[in-house]
């Protein structure tokens, strides 16, 4: 048994409670505990409230079946009997027996208006309806019926081999029938299902009110004919769902014909095949989802099995049955009809010598001895419910003559014949249709086989086929089937218990008085047989459908239409009243909207929320002179200088009720700008490791915050990329950006960043530097980026003032520093002793302090203030010297073009190469002249070069003078100072190495040996200037 898929889907569990979140903290693997309303959760939430949008509904369902024997003209009658309910013979179908069998119109009973049988038979033609004229219709029809279900057999000639072996069904006959039914139906009825298999045709129509409530229609065919598979026998089946709640199955079958025992077994086999092989498409459940598995017969709430089941009367000579029945049908013709061919035939036959083995007289004689009618009548319902059984049969004690006990009555005849009905016996012996199937009381004549065109003449052909109730309408509710299953289980239990008892010892079991239950399968089983066939329960109870609704089905009419003459079978129909819970589409739409709104609300309110607090720092230098609003909502870094680190902190707090996973995401990328989470000048550090610590460094970092939790983020701004410095200096770029903080399943927060770039001399070209006005590069602070209004475009200086100022400061400071060391320092441990490159490397100060002091030096340069004023007074000369010296090296390195540009260098190198080739050497003096001469094409460069080399020579002289004789030093007993003086060439070499690299730009292309040679030459160019005794030259 399929369980409801709603309870088994894991997805549905997750969504069953809107607004619910996992109680465990979200892990890094599952960071988003979202309540995303999908179609699934929405429709399931709607489904859970189905009680609010279902209301009980009552419709009538009419099921009709007719074997039309591929006779033309039959389609002319279908509207009359099936839709209008006409053609029932009141005298031959016990109409006057039933309490609710009141004629549907006054005057019907014996009304002279209704056409006589004689006249009806007389006028019969294939071109016209054979339905009696003026028949008001006994069975409810027209627009009283919500659902018309018609099953036809033999709409094509299935006895023809060509038809039986057809690989497909000819649609033409079906079309003819659809047209015939549609024409008879009241306006608005729609065809909701149809299925054809060769001669089998099933079509369902619904009223305009019911049709839109029908869903999950699925139809199928099962052939059980030739070879067990051909479609000359079998079934066509439809499954529909009514009102989104009630599953109904309709089986129209044509089982194997014949009276032989083998035919009977084949019919049972056909039925079992139809049960096994019928498979429908999955149902769309109320949650809007297709169920996983298709259904078969048995999964529905209500099933209707009808058609030409072909079960016969057994152990009864057909001849006897004919005679017996024609005793009743002869009366139909009356005085006027005596000349009718049918009537004559009947009378002729009845006039034959009495050969009835089962005559009316015998029957009449037998009756009184059988007070209990149930032995010839089909017993009903459950053995445990005797009230049901008794309510079926009318008690003999009633005042009116009980037709069932009237030996001459039709009902008595029918009851005696029904005792021989194969279908009932198969049901009783549980060989077919035993699992819960019911049938209404049969109070009409066998539907087969008549002479075409006759109301009451049974087959007068040579074969004289024995009349039988071949055509039947069975039905079954879900409860009937479940009850049957339970009964089988109970019996199985009993059998087991009995076997256990036998194993324990039969003697004990028999003697033990406490044994409450003693089951003998032989005798007990026989008892049950009589109760196996269910008839309609007069007062059906509500039962629970597969989808959990309360439905009720009751049979109102079960009639054959004896006065339909166009086929050798009489048509048969049954009308049911179905009470069911149907979905009201309007109410459902309203609930749907409500639920959607609630889910949206839960989803929107359940989103994570964070609060971002920017820790504004009091910045002495962040007095913006521009028009920026004071309430800048982002992170303001204030003034930003070259190579100066600034930090700001931001706190992200989870101020919502659910965990929040946050992370900075890639900002949108404008063309030409680098993307990523942050601009290159900014670093983001969380004060805790990310959720996924092991992710590769490139992955976005995410942090999950529990409600109330907060994380601190440090934003570090550092501009040291010279290319960026240049672009900032040229104002083609600004220190403005926006970070995007994403809250998973929530909103994005924008965090604007802003820094105010202070102009720097670093990174510029000599040509630009010589244009810096008095007052320093900061004077350019508020100029426009296009540079069009560079206050004064003119050249202000012969060489960059920065070079002049730095070299001058070094010359000045080196003397003081040495003096200072002489006074206070450790004579054996002078910095220049430790590193011959000092003060341009090998510094005493630590990096951090140097960085701070270098900023001071740069500030002095950029704002054109004397270093003596920018340095804090406690900084001594030695420290100042180191800071200024390092700044000079870095400044020269930062120059865009270099003091000796690539072009100038190529020219110098060319001359040097020529001399090398010619093995010519110049004197040092001549070489210096030649170099300066070569550089003189670029005066600012040449002057800068001179400043630097002159300064280096001076510093060299201070640290390691040439003119102090070695011996003298030794003699005077100052050995500590002797060593450095010996090192002057080494000092020169060190200085030359540092400054050649800082000042002279080699082509980037040169590599390997060639570059090594160039570097040697480059160093030589500087070194040659350090050898001069510049005291003389100055």
């Amino acid at each position, binding site marked *: 048994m399929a369980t409801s898929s709603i309870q088994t889907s894991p997805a549905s569990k997750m969504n069953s409670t809107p607004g619910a979140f996992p109680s465990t903290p979200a892990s890094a693997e599952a960071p988003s505990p979202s309540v995303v309303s999908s179609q699934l959760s929405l429709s399931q939430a709607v489904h859970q409230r189905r009680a609010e949008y279902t209301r009980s509904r009552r419709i009538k369902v009419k099921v009709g079946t007719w074997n039309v024997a591929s006779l033309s003209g039959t389609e002319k009658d279908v509207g009359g009997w099936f839709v209008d309910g006409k053609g029932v013979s009141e005298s031959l179908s016990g109409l006057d027996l039933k309490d609710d069998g009141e004629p549907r119109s006054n005057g019907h009973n014996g009304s002279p208006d209704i056409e006589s049988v004689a006249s009806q038979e007389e006028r019969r033609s294939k071109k016209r309806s054979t339905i009696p004229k003026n028949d008001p219709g006994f069975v409810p029809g027209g627009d009283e019926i919500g659902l018309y279900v018609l099953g036809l057999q033999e709409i094509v000639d299935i006895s023809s081999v060509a038809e039986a072996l057809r690989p497909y069904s000819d649609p033409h006959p079906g079309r003819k029938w659809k047209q015939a039914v549609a024409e008879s139906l009241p306006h608005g009825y729609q065809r909701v299902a149809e299925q054809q298999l060769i001669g089998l045709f099933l079509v369902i129509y619904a009223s305009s009110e019911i049709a839109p409530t029908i869903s999950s229609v699925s139809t199928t065919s099962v052939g059980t004919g030739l070879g067990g598979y051909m479609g000359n026998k079998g079934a066509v089946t439809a499954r529909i769902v009514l009102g989104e709640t009630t599953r109904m199955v309709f089986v129209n079958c044509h089982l194997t014909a014949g009276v032989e025992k083998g035919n009977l077994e084949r019919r049972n086999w056909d039925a079992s095949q139809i049960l096994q092989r019928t498979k429908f498409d999955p149902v769309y459940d109320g949650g809007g989802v297709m169920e996983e598995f298709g259904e078969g017969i048995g999964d529905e709430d209500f099933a209707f099995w009808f058609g030409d089941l072909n079960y016969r009367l057994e152990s009864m000579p057909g001849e006897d049955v004919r005679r017996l029945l024609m005793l009743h049908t002869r009366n139909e013709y009356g005085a006027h009809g005596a000349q009718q061919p049918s009537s004559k035939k009947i009378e002729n036959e009845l006039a034959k010598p009495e050969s009835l083995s089962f005559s009316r007289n015998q029957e009449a004689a037998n009756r009184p001895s059988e007070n209990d009618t149930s032995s010839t009548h089909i017993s009903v319902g459950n053995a445990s419910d005797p009230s049901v059984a008794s309510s079926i049969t009318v008690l003999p004690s009633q005042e009116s003559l009980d037709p069932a006990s009237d030996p001459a009555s039709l009902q008595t005849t029918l009851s005696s014949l029904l005792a021989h009905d194969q279908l009932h016996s198969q049901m009783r012996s549980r060989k077919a249709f035993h699992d819960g199937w019911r049938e209404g009381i049969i109070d009409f004549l066998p539907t087969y086989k008549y002479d075409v065109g006759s109301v009451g003449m049974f087959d007068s052909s040579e074969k004289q086929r024995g009349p039988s109730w071949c055509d039947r309408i069975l039905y079954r509710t879900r409860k009937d089937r479940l009850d049957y299953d339970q009964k089988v289980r109970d019996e199985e239990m009993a059998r087991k218990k009995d076997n256990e008892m036998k194993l324990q010892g039969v003697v004990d079991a028999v003697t033990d008085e406490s044994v409450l239950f003693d089951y003998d399968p032989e005798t007990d089983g026989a008892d049950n047989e009589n109760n196996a066939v269910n008839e309609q329960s007069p007062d059906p109870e509500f039962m629970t459908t597969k989808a959990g609704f309360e439905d009720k089905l009751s049979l109102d009419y079960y009639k054959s239409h004896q006065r339909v003459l166009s086929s050798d079978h009489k048509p048969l129909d049954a009308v049911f009243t179905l009470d069911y819970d149907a979905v009201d589409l309007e109410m459902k739409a309203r609930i749907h909207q409500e639920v959607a709104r609630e889910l949206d609300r839960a989803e929107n309110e359940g989103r994570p929320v964070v609060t971002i607090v920017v820790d504004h720092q009091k910045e002495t230098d962040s007095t913006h002179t521009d028009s920026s609003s004071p309430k800048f909502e982002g992170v303001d870094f204030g003034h930003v200088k070259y190579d100066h680190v600034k930090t700001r902190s931001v706190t992200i707090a989870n101020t919502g009720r659910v965990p929040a996973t946050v992370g900075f995401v890639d900002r949108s990328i404008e063309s030409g700008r680098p993307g990523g989470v942050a601009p290159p000048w900014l670093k983001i550090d969380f004060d805790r490791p990310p959720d996924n610590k092991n992710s590769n460094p490139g992955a*976005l970092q995410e942090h999950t915050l529990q409600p109330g939790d907060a994380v601190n983020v440090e934003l570090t701004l550092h501009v040291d990329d010279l290319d960026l410095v240049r672009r900032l200096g040229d104002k083609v770029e600004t220190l403005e950006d926006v970070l995007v903080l994403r809250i998973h*399943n929530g909103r994005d927060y924008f965090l604007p960043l802003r820094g105010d770039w202070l102009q720097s001399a670093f990174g510029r070209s000599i040509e630009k530097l010589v244009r810096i006005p008095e007052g320093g590069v900061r004077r350019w602070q508020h100029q426009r980026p296009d540079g069009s209004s560079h206050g004064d475009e003119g050249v202000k200086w012969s060489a960059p003032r920065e070079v002049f100022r730095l070299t001058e400061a070094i010359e000045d400071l080196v003397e003081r520093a040495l003096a200072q060391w002489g006074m206070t320092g450790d004579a054996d441990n002078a910095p220049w002793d430790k590193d011959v490159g000092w003060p341009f490397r090998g510094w005493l100060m630590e990096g951090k302090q140097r960085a701070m002091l270098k900023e001071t030096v740069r500030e002095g340069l950029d704002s054109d203030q004397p270093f003596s004023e920018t340095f804090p007074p406690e900084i001594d000369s030695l420290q100042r010297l180191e800071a200024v010296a390092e700044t000079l090296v870095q400044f020269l390195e930062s120059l865009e073009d270099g003091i000796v540009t690539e072009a100038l260098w190529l020219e110098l190198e060319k001359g040097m190469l020529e001399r090398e080739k010619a093995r010519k050497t110049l004197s040092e003096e001549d070489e210096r002249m030649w170099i300066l001469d070569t550089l003189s094409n670029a005066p600012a460069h040449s002057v800068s070069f001179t400043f630097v080399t002159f300064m280096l020579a001076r510093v060299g002289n201070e640290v390691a003078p040439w003119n102090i004789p070695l011996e003298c030093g030794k003699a005077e007993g100052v050995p500590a100072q002797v060593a450095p003086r010996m090192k002057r060439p080494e000092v020169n070499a060190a200085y030359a190495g540092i400054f050649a690299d800082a000042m002279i730009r080699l082509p980037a292309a040169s590599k390997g040996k060639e570059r090594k040679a160039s570097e040697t030459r480059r160093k030589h160019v500087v070194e040659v200037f350090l050898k001069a005794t510049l005291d003389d030259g100055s």
Partner: protein
Amino acid sequence: MSSRVSTGARPGARFAQFKLVLLGESAVGKSSLVLRFVKDQFDDYRESTIGAAFLTQTISLDDATTVKFEIWDTAGQERYKSLAPMYYRNANCAVVVYDITQASSLDKAKSWVKELQRQANENIIIALAGNKSDLVAEHPDKRAITTADAEAYAREAGLLFFETSAKTAENVRELFTAIARKLPLEQAGNRGMRANPRQGVDLRPEAPGTQGGGACNC
């Protein structure tokens, strides 16, 4: 994992999910329109949006069709303009809002429309919303852009057009419903459906790394 296929309460029922982005000059009422649509509320004073608010709202077109909007309400301030592509890049529809009492806001709206038509998904449905119709109802002289002008522009540019009031709710639901009706439900019908909400199409802006989303199971 559920193996059920969801194709509707009955054949033909549809559920589709779409990403919608709101664009427009600062203070034209983008967030107010969303607030009215989603919560049926209005605040006279709303702080400007710094970021992109994310909300969802489901509407039923008829008993068989449900459309869920994932709404990204973006900041209108100029400084955030460069971030807009993050939100309109994968959007199925956009509402470009202007203020009918501010002539400049329509120019801005036009430039957004241009940008969308150039840069966004080529099938994007764009609606133009002239907000603050309530102001004009009280003081007709406050109107700076005539309905006819805006309508003519919208027709020319192939946009849906509504004059709305987030304050009185006028045309707000109509605006979103009109968009939903214009969306390609047939195609999206399938991809909006998912048996497991953790799967399916993530219509939010693309983000590398662990951001959800990925394969569509249609």
